[in-house]
């Protein structure tokens, strides 16, 4: 096995000192001088209504108010995968709290005061607050114009309905598969919406200068995609891509909420109306909940047939997604799940229908896990229930069905190399799966739960990453990439990759969050693809630089290229142990020849990566024929819980989770992802719950009533396990692990509750209240 110096080492984060010392600046920290203006949003107080009129005259009279803008000022559609979104509501409001207008003023106070004086007249429309209502015959249409929206070729909207996309899988013969089954389990599961709860609010400052240059500073996961969508939306104004510049300062948490474009376009649009003034739009905690992306809710109907030995003969999975008022991003969640809702199993006969359904609730969008947590809640609950029915061990039924390398995915492509079985075995061993536990306290029940997980990046087939690598005089490096460090350690890992190829220590590599004018293209920091995709680009850039260095040595020192290698910031030669030359002696200023001339010049590496093997071309009726996903990352997890039988409260004693990282480029960062993901998963499993009233208004857009765990609520122990079955096309064998750790948590908690108490909960969250009331209900029935 190859020995690495920087890869596979827990290198300290390159941005750690900046963040720990407070030197790191976030969007709201930036200073823009006395010309700065502040915008305040006017929100619609209805989930579905027509806008009859907007009277801004009184607001305009407030001192310090510069302008009031409304939808009429910006008649542009935009969206990532489907252009169904507007900067401000046009004639129609589609969710409670949607932006109708904005006041721009010299102080936030004046803007807030004036925003209350904007008078909007509405005529309300019937609203649709659940996906099952939205697909009923005669349901009111939320987007009557659906058929005219532009969208990517792999979406299939149903005009004149509320179905924005329908992803279908038809594989094998499902009817025959169910006919062959010895046992069939069919049930419905419900997963509500959730919020990302990043600590930093969405923030954007935009400036349209008098020369026509639009610069946007935004807390963002997607600087280049934002530039692209801004340029597309404002193209009617003559704005070109190179007129738009997005600068991305540090980000205080993303989890998907800062991907694509949401409120940032409001700042950009307003700025165009007040040239020369920087305009700040800052969201507050409430808006973080009801006017950014939310995780989509879903109702799933799942039917699985098995033989008596537990082998799956057929699977039918119907998913009805509550995608919200706009689905420009969320429809791809629906698509991704449609392709993968067999879970990490070998399923020869499968039928999947994944429906993206408009509702009058806030827009659904990307959220860590991208739909996989949602469908695996039902699927992994189902597997444990089937095992219980058949009298097969939980671990064993999963081992028997686990998908192996080369077996077919739901869409007929070959499964990538993976360590699923190793992960299952490692978790079962570490959690002592076969050991029965019993509490000494009669009020406490102990339960164990198991779950597998898998997830593929959901990306367009041409999602690309690129890198510039610039050497400096002292052989230090500026590594220019456009991925975002969201706390996951992206920049550190990119530095490690370049360090390994060039044998320059990470302490001499500076890599920072991007500016789209200076840094090369990156699609987005989403989908857990950035280590893999951008890592490949960095590796190629480093190899490109190394090639240039070696070529120069060949040209000036007459040594064979294939005998040259990098070591300790020097070039050395395998066949000439006495030869060595320090990078800093030539990396910018070249190598001097005997005649006094210099050869070479600044070494600049360039790397581009596009997954050229992927394709979304497939039969829309079956999804067979394409290769939409690059690969899957897999793993397994198990939990031990204690439940208070009187109160329903859960205490998590131990969670063990194993993930196949391909190659853990930085093990401590991978472990960090596992621990953080497990906590986020636990939070959605037992604490978080978005509540809406009959008007579609969110009732708990605050941490008083929307609970995420505090330090007091973390499990007693979380054990991360790294499995390494290399991804052949990954940098040093790595594949993504960012989203995955949270995915198995909800079903394994549900399975553990069943194990502890003998009750099965099919709807998330699995709150103490729900557990307790279910127990009381059962006790009441038993009495009768």
């Amino acid at each position: 096995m190859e020995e690495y110096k920087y890869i596979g080492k827990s290198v300290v984060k390159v941005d750690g000192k900046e963040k720990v010392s407070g030197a790191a600046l976030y969007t709201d920290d930036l200073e823009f001088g006395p010309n700065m203006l502040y915008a305040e949003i006017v929100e619609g107080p209805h989930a579905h209504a027509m806008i009859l009129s907007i009277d801004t005259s009184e607001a305009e009279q407030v001192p310090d108010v510069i302008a009031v803008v409304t939808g009429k000022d910006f008649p542009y559609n935009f969206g990532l995968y489907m252009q169904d979104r507007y900067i401000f509501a046009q004639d129609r409001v589609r969710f409670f709290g949607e932006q109708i207008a904005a006041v721009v003023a010299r102080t936030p106070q004046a803007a807030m005061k004036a925003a209350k004086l904007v008078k909007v007249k509405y005529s309300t429309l019937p609203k649709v607050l659940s996906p099952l209502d939205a697909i009923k015959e005669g349901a009111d249409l939320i987007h009557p114009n659906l058929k005219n929206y532009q969208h990517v070729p792999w979406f299939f909207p149903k005009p004149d309905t509320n179905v924005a996309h329908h992803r279908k899988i038809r594989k094998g013969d499902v009817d025959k598969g169910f006919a062959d089954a010895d046992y069939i389990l069919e049930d419905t599961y419900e997963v509500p919406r959730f919020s990302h709860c990043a600590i930093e609010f969405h923030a954007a400052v935009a400036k349209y200068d008098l020369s026509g240059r639009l610069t946007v500073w935004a807390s963002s996961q997607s600087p280049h995609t934002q530039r692209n969508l801004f340029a597309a939306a404002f193209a009617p104004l003559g704005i070109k891509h190179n007129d738009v510049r997005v600068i991305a300062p540090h980000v205080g948490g993303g989890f998907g909420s800062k991907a694509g474009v949401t409120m940032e376009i409001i700042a950009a649009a307003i700025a165009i109306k007040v040239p020369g003034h920087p305009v700040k739009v800052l969201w507050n905690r409430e808006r973080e909940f009801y006017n950014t992306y939310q995780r989509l809710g879903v109702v799933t109907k799942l039917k699985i047939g098995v033989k008596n030995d537990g082998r799956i003969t057929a699977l039918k999975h119907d998913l009805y997604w509550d995608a919200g008022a706009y689905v420009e991003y969320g429809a791809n969640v629906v698509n991704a799940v449609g392709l993968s809702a067999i879970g990490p199993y070998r399923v020869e006969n499968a039928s999947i229908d994944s429906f993206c359904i408009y509702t009058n609730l806030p827009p659904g969008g990307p959220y860590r896990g991208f739909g996989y947590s949602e469908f695996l809640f039902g699927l992994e609950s189902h597997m444990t229930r089937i095992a219980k029915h058949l009298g097969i061990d939980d671990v064993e039924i999963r081992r028997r069905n686990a998908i192996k390398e080369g077996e077919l995915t739901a869409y007929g492509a070959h499964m990538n190399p993976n360590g699923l079985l190793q992960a299952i075995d490692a978790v079962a061993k570490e959690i002592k799966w076969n050991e029965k536990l019993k509490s000494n306290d009669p009020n406490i029940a102990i339960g164990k739960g198991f779950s597998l997980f898998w997830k593929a990046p959901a990306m367009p087939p041409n999602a690309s990453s690129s890198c510039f690598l610039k050497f400096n005089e002292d052989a230090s490096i500026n590594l220019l990439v456009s991925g975002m460090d969201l706390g996951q350690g992206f920049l550190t890992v990119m530095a490690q990759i370049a360090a390994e190829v060039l044998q320059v220590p990470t302490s001499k590599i500076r890599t920072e969050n991007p500016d789209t004018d200076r840094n090369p293209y990156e699609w987005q920091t989403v989908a857990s693809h950035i280590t893999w995709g951008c890592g490949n680009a960095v590796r190629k850039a480093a190899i490109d630089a190394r090639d240039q260095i070696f070529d120069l040595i060949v040209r000036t020192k007459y040594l064979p290229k294939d005998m040259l290698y990098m070591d300790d910031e020097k070039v050395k030669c395998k066949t000439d142990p006495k030869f060595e030359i320090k990078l800093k002696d030539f990396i910018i200023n070249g190598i001097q020849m005997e005649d006094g001339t210099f050869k070479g010049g600044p070494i600049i590496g360039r790397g581009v990566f596009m997954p050229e093997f992927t394709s979304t071309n497939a039969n829309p009726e079956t999804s067979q024929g394409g290769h939409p996903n690059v690969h899957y990352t897999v793993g397994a997890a198990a939990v031990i819980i204690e439940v208070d039988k009187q109160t329903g409260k859960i205490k998590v004693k131990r969670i063990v989770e194993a993930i196949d990282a391909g190659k853990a480029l930085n093990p401590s960062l991978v472990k960090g992802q596992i621990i953080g993901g497990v906590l986020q998963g636990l939070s959605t499993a037992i604490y978080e719950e978005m509540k809406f009233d009959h008007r579609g208004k969110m009732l708990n857009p605050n941490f008083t009533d929307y609970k995420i765990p505090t330090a007091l609520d973390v499990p007693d122990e979380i054990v991360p396990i790294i499995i390494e079955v290399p991804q052949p096309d990954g940098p040093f064998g790595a594949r993504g692990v960012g989203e995955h750790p949270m995915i198995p948590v909800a079903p394994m908690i549900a399975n553990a509750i069943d194990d502890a108490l003998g009750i099965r909960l099919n709807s998330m969250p699995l709150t103490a209240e729900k557990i307790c009331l279910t127990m009381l209900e059962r006790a009441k029935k038993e009495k009768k």
Partner: protein
Amino acid sequence: MAIPYEFGYVKPTSLQEAIELKGKFQKEARVLAGGTDLVNEIKKGFRVPEMIIDVKGISELSKIEIVNGQLLIGALVTFSDIRKSQVIIDNMNILFEAAGMVASNGVRNRATMIGNICSAVACMDSAAPLLVHEATVHTASMDGKREVKIQNWFVDNRKTAILDNELVTHVSIPIPTVKYAGAYQKMMRYSGEDLSQANVGVLLFANGDCHVAFGSVGPTPKRSLKIENLLKSKGISVATIEEAKEMIETVIAPITDVRATKEYRMHMTKVMFERAMQTAMERIKMPKIITK
């Protein structure tokens, strides 16, 4: 977050000055001690006063002391002060216990107990301990001093017996002459900071007397003499606790809201009552009460 509303601010240095200001502005003035409720209300524009009277400069309001067998807790005493006070630990353990469950450390460092009973939000944590200890609220105004028994203090959700020209200066708690031990239970959605969805306070006395109070299960917190009389007359036992649990159904009136259903609140109040009784019974047997 910017506050778009305008208001006056004044910081008196003596109680007399504060009383005069309150007398002048009446209900147009609101009193700032910890501000953890007040500032939020102003930010949201719920109740924006013409004048804020900041009483933090009046040092006599920050005392915790025992005078003539009465424990006195001043208007500036924060929940963190309570957590650090040996006088409270030794004499009013249930308040010490409840104070530790109020919000988070950061909030406890600012929020005052008197502010808590002046805001009088139904889910407050201070009420049950003060009710079982039969506290008295002391107010001052240009008209003189006034005393209000704690059970008469809470008029409705967010409404107290305070008059527009009054300030609360302190509460007094009579120190029982027989041995006693209390326990507080709070229903929370998780272990982090949470507003109680129900709470129970009990105080047992060596002479067989007992006091029981419930919070967050009705518009105002209240004691239940009915349950107290049952336990007093029949004695405290597994059977009478069970009987008292059933009686809770007739004593409290929880509602369903965004935080919990009335069914769960009712069930949890019974469980918490039983657990509080068990804890208090264990504690009264101890030579010295130890709580966390």
